[in-house]
């Protein structure tokens, strides 16, 4: 299995930060300055500048911003995050892709054996619970706008809003947690291998 090294990088020009995940064997071949240069060059596609301006305008909102998250086509899936404009609830504005560690491991198997976090690419751990998606999205926003106060983000997991044709109404207050939860469920994994191969 590939041994992964993770290095925190910061673009010298604007302070935006991100990480590079790379095969540890490559550490001997690259200096930190090389990685920072590549990070800065890869950080944003010029065609994305206009979209980033729209996102920055949304971030001025004083109310919480809703973020829809949809899975991609792969398995395990990457997650595509979109802002929902409070002034135009039908529109979606692409924010970033949240990518879990198993996918990063796959990417590292192919050249150049390194993956940068960028303006549209945020790496998260292998835990894809809704809390982890929220945390990863907040980390993405914190990387891109390190000096500004960000609004609260409300994560809307898929595909409920697709089914209803409109976003779910956020509850006035969080509903209480159910009683009786146990530390570890007694249930076993569902299908047997025989079922799956039938």
């Amino acid at each position, binding site marked *: 299995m590939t041994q992964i090294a993770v290095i925190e990088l910061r673009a010298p020009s604007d302070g935006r930060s991100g990480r590079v995940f790379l095969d540890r064997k490559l550490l001997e071949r690259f200096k930190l300055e090389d990685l920072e240069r590549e990070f800065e060059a890869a950080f944003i596609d010029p065609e994305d500048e206009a979209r980033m301006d729209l996102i920055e305008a949304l971030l001025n909102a004083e109310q919480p911003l809703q973020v829809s998250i949809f899975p991609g086509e792969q*398995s395990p899936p990457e997650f595509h995050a979109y802002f929902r404009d409070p002034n135009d609830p039908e529109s979606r504005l692409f924010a970033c892709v949240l990518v879990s560690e198993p996918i990063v491991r796959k990417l590292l198997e192919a050249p150049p054996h390194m993956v940068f976090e960028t303006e549209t690419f945020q790496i998260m751990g292998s835990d894809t619970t809704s809390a982890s998606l929220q945390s990863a999205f907040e980390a993405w926003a914190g990387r891109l706008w390190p000096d500004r106060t960000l609004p609260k983000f409300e994560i809307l997991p898929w595909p*409920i809003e697709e089914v209803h044709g409109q976003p779910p109404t956020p509850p006035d207050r969080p509903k209480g947690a159910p009683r009786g939860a146990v530390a570890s469920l007694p249930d076993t*994994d569902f299908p047997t291998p025989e079922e799956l191969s039938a």
Partner: protein
Amino acid sequence: MRLVAQRVLRPPNGATGINAYCYFHPGCDWLDAPPDDLGRGVLRGKIIEVDPPSGNRVRSYLDITTPDHTTDLHITESVLSGADLLQSGGESLPWTLTHLETRFEFNLELALVQQWELELRMLLGYALQARKSAQQNP
């Protein structure tokens, strides 16, 4: 139809994710609660994030039984409104509710319980996606 979504943890390497399955029951229909002798059905659709999908620890699950022709919208409303009812009634986990021809069961471990609403929605999303994969690959 039986739709199952499980958040699982693979102990050897800590891999975690949601596996979901869609089982059909061709030729079966019912007007009230699902029959006890329904059986698991024929596996037609699946989403596998944690592979292999057996021998894993289950952290949360949603298990829905309903006739094959039930719409996604009806399933969604049954599960979400049923969960609201159980939560407001202070019911203890695991939650099981039968409303007309649809039954669902939901449970999650203590570490996830504070985010139960989002967890339920995610599991439901995966369950419906497994159904969609079954319909796209008949």
